[in-house]
């Protein structure tokens, strides 16, 4: 049985191997260049004492590439589900070859187990290898540990990509078995896998562990902790980020700044504090706003998960994918046992 499974997977496997080798070579070469550039910049900026500006330039030059690498890795499990998973059974049903396979002296359960192991382990290996390379590639660019909590970064690094590859491949196999036609099954697999890939880290992940919410008065005492102030909807909502946020924490949500009665603080309700922002002569320093708002007793809050939650969340998100994969695999075996042509 293993021979048939390997033989059927040969073309796809070799194509994927070529892609993985090419991608790895690219990541290795550019990753090494990135490191030598980083080292050179460090020497240069230490000498000139301009490291902040120079590192910021370095970051700006290379982060788009890292984002692109992460994005490609983010959709890779869905693509693997599409190309490897969906046709695995659907193609046999479409062409009738399942009748040949199921009438050799090998039970259907064994047939599926071997197919699943061959394709599944190839998928997990391919995604896992690329993910580890990408993590290594981006290491010089990590200034802020909170970056790794980003939806795309979190899902494409460490444990999660292994689990999401396992899920996507089993999902494809099950959808192929259900729909019995490869092409529609491929489209549906891609859509569903991508949906889950987005849904789990954006909607489920914030609730996997209890977040911490800190509510604080906006005044001159927090002024030097502020990282950024954002005005949205034409200045009707003000957001302050930075105060009471531990290093490397993941910001789950930041509600708008409110006054004592719970109303949103806006440019219009407190024009005197924002007057400076509108001056053509140039905005007032960031620290002026909290000081100015301090006289009106306004509050802000932040909800976050501390940096220490990174690994528990990695394990939990992976567990979700693996549980889904187990569920879908279980369904496949159940389907196989009670299949009626």
């Amino acid at each position, binding site marked *: *049985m*293993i*021979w*048939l499974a390997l*033989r*059927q997977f040969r*073309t796809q496997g070799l194509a994927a191997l070529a892609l993985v080798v090419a991608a790895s070579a690219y990541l290795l070469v550019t990753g090494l260049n990135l490191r030598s550039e980083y080292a050179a910049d460090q020497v240069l900026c230490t000498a000139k004492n301009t490291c902040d500006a120079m590192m910021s330039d370095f970051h700006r030059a290379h982060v788009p590439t890292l984002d692109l690498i992460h994005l490609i890795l983010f959709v890779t499990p869905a693509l693997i589900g599409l190309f490897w998973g969906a046709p695995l059974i659907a193609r046999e049903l479409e*062409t*009738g*070859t399942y*009748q*040949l396979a*199921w*009438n*050799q*002296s*090998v*039970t259907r359960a*064994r047939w599926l187990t071997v197919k699943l192991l061959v394709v599944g382990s190839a998928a997990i290996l391919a995604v896992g290898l690329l993910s580890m390379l990408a993590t290594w590639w981006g290491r010089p660019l990590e200034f802020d540990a909170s970056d790794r909590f980003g939806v795309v970064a979190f899902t494409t690094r460490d444990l999660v990509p292994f689990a999401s590859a396992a899920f996507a491949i089993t999902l494809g196999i099950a959808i192929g078995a259900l729909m019995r036609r490869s092409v529609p099954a491929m489209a549906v697999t891609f859509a569903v896998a991508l949906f889950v890939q987005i849904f789990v880290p954006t909607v489920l992940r914030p609730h996997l562990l209890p977040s911490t919410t800190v509510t604080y008065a906006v005044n001159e005492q927090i002024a030097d902790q502020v990282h950024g102030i954002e005005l949205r909807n034409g200045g009707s909502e003000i957001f302050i980020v930075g105060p009471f946020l531990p290093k490397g924490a993941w910001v789950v949500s930041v509600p708008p700044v409110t006054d004592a009665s719970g109303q949103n603080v806006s440019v219009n309700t407190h024009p005197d504090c924002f007057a400076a922002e509108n001056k053509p002569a140039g905005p007032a320093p960031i620290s002026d706003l909290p000081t100015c708002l301090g006289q009106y007793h306004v509050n802000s809050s932040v909800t976050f998960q501390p940096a220490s939650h990174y690994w528990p969340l990695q394990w939990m998100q992976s567990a979700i994918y693996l549980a889904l994969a187990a569920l879908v695999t279980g369904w496949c075996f159940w389907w196989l046992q*009670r299949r*009626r*042509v």
Partner: protein
Amino acid sequence: MTAVLQAESLTKNYGRRRALVDCTLAIPPGHVVGLVGPNGAGKSTLLKIACGMLAPSTGTIEVLGDRPATGPAQLARVGYVAQDTPTYSNLSVADHLTIGAAMNPRWDATLAKERVDQLDLDPKQKAGKLSGGQRAQLALTMAVAKRPELLILDEPVASLDPLARRSFLRHLMESVADNDTSVILSSHVMSDLERVCDYLVVLESSRVQLAGETEDLLAQHHRIVCTRRNAEDLPQGLEVISAEHTDRQSTFIVRGEPRLRPGDWSAEPLALEDIVLTYMERAADPGRRPTSADPEVGR
């Protein structure tokens, strides 16, 4: 000896459609069994149940004394060539033989290689590039080299031209003659089966209409031609399968030994094809079944 196929009240429904109804059969071993019936009569359904591709809705079936496809051992004992003889189109002939060798404990590599040579198949050729006849031969080779005790073939020659049909059936007979393999093959064309089968099962309207060794069937059935009369006026002990009447003459097809008193009637043997067609017509159109209430006859 255990029956090759023993079915008790086997029924298979696809939703509300009844594909097989109350099928009871006991096929003894050592035969080449022809399963004949028009398209949609339930032939494929019965064969798929026999090899475990389908589960019956109700009733029981045992193949070689065991329930179909219960495990590797039972799978090894039954060879099955599906309708349209599917093969992996992107794998070569040699690949198919490797699959057979890897997946069957009793695989006969010598036999497989001999057959491929004999058929002039290029081992490097992709199965997708083979003609319909060659593909059917490849599928048959895989099923035969598995050395099954029972070989089931579903309409194996349906898509072949007459020459390929003949050669396929000849190879089939050669392959099974040496090994005491029982064979069940289905067709909607009686002439395909007539040459090779020594046991016949007629399926029509989802029911088994007739089953038995061809020799017995030929010996048991007769056509009686006589002056016009009712079926009841025939000698006792004859089962009337069909009756046709013209103004002056009646033609009966009967089962049983016709011991006719001398008179204005004569009994003659029937060709196998006529027997089969008679049963099929009767099943397809129950209104023509001869009964005493038949107004044509009673007049």
